[in-house]
């Protein structure tokens, strides 16, 4: 359950600023490490800034989402949500310059399948990298297996992720049972799903409990559809007396919505510019000689466009 989970204890933060701070620190740590190592060609301008990393992060996150959506057999939503959460948590404490997001992205998906008991063999998994030749898929698999333990370690071995999908189902059931004022909750399902997909691309998972996110999704969709659901919170949840908690709930929902509004897809020219820099950094200072060069190897850009 969420209330005793490691997600609540270790991976739920107070506000967006603390997240920004963590990412900034990860970036600085890498920079300092590289500067201290005294390798040739090292200078501040070569490295990516925190906001540049952010752009690239969003880009690769979108690609991860597309990869999971194009996955055969069809990946359940919780698996997708878990994969994106792993990706997000990993890059909270590590810099994109140190570990290339292209590799980490696939490992997140792979690990998520395992943790969520979505049974895919490794060959089946790399078979989904459709643009690769068989040899390329082999190499990809090797890389995945090489970095898997690193990912688990950076997640601090906290592998269980609570996504908002099951709370959403639970709330729908509850509404159908106890809240007859809303006539057809099923009609909301599509827009709720949509909302939840968009919310996973924001930092909400690291700031709010999944049940609150699900509640926001439902209330938002209801208000969009013009249906009123205000009394649900007051009557059914017993918050009529408890003004304070009610206010806090509204506040949380407002914040989630604002996070969603702030999200925007990264601009292609920015992405390309930063990508060049990233590749340079990995080529020059990358510790792994096994690393691929160039984006086209995994060939996922076709789906992207």
């Amino acid at each position, binding site marked *: *359950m*969420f*209330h005793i989970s490691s997600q609540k204890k270790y991976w*739920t933060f107070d506000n967006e600023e603390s997240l920004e701070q963590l990412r900034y620190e990860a970036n600085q740590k890498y920079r300092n490490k590289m500067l201290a190592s005294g390798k040739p060609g090292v200078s501040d301008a070569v490295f990516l800034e925190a906001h540049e990393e952010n752009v690239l992060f969003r880009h690769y996150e979108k690609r991860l989402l597309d990869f999971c959506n194009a996955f055969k057999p069809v990946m359940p939503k919780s698996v997708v949500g878990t994969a994106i959460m792993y990706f997000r948590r990993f890059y909270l404490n590590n810099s994109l310059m140190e570990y290339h997001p292209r590799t980490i992205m696939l490992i997140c998906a792979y690990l998520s399948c395992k943790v969520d008991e979505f049974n895919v063999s490794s060959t089946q998994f790399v078979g989904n990298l459709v643009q690769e030749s068989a040899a390329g898929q082999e190499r990809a698999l090797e890389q995945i297996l090489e970095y898997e333990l690193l990912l688990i370690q950076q997640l601090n071995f906290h592998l269980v992720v609570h996504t908002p999908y099951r*709370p959403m189902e639970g709330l729908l*059931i509850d509404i159908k049972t106890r809240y007859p004022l809303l006539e057809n909750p099923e009609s909301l399902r599509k827009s709720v799903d949509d909302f939840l997909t968009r919310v996973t691309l924001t930092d909400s998972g690291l700031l709010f409990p999944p049940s609150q996110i699900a509640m926001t999704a439902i209330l938002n969709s209801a208000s969009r559809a013009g249906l009123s659901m205000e009394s649900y919170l007051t009557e059914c949840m017993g918050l009529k007396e408890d003004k304070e*908690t009610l206010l*806090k709930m509204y506040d949380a929902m407002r914040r989630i919505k604002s996070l969603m509004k702030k999200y925007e897809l990264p601009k292609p020219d920015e992405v390309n510019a930063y990508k060049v820099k990233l590749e340079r950094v990995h080529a020059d200072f990358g510790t792994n000689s096994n690393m691929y060069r160039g984006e086209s190897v995994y060939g996922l850009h076709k789906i992207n466009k």
Partner: protein
Amino acid sequence: MKGRCSNSPGLIRGKENCQSDLCEMDDQGCPRCKTTKYRNPSLKLMVNVCGHTLCESCVDMLFVRGSGNCVQCDTPLRKSNFRVQLFEDPAVDKEVEIRKKVLKIYNKRDFDFSNLREYNDYLERVEEIVYNLTNNLEVEGTKQIMEAYQRENRDIIQKNKAKLTREQEELEELLLLEQQGNEQRRLETLQEEQRQLQAKRKSKQALLDELERSHVPATILLAQHKDRAAQLETQIEKQKQVVKTTIFSTGIPMGQTVSLLTVNRLEEVLYHYQPIHMHTYGPPVPELEQLGRLGYLNHVRTAQPQDMAGGYNSGLACHRAIQDAFSGLFHPLG
């Protein structure tokens, strides 16, 4: 073992130890008459002091002709030196013989020594002597050492011999007693059985007689007979239970109080059960059993017969979804 007996990997030879019926072939034939061994599995092998084997018939043959030399190593032998082989490897038998002889002389025991070190050194010397004699190394020197030891420790050897015989006698007495006890018990049970059989036969005979003679209808007679048989059975049962045991099998008589050290009485605070209180940071979740009554189960996919066979019911999924929906809903952070 006779043949390649893969089930009992012990060294002891003997038909009674070998459980497989397939072991007829012997893996070592008699060196002289080889064929006889294969043809006659009941023939025993004898071993002598030089460590070589000969089957019984060959031994007889050898001494009929008067010559007393071993076939393989040509050492002079006496017929009395042949013993029935106990171990598969004749070398082992030879060593056992030598060891017996050595230990007759070197019969000191652990309490004869002042500390462990000396005892171990003594044992090591014994082992060396046995080893030398078995492998025919420095036989003369070893024999001299043995004689010297014998002369020096004559009285100790005598004393220990006497002690040993006494202990053996005691053991044998105990064994004898036990055997006698077993025999008696066996006889008693046999007698009991006999008596019971006789009693049963008598009652049957009595029934037949009565059926012949009496005028009472047959059904009543049969009922009476059955009653009597039942009574007999209960009597027998009671008799069996009446056998009182007065001592435990370890020899301690029953009813004896054994005095032990007094145990200190520990007084500690009594444990009071406190139910666990989980803070879910959300509204209260209805109990699993109440879900049906409250109407939640109408909105969950009903369980198929295949699912229910495994113990699943729709309430479980519903309860979990509700729990997840309510958990953390009023979470103060965020």
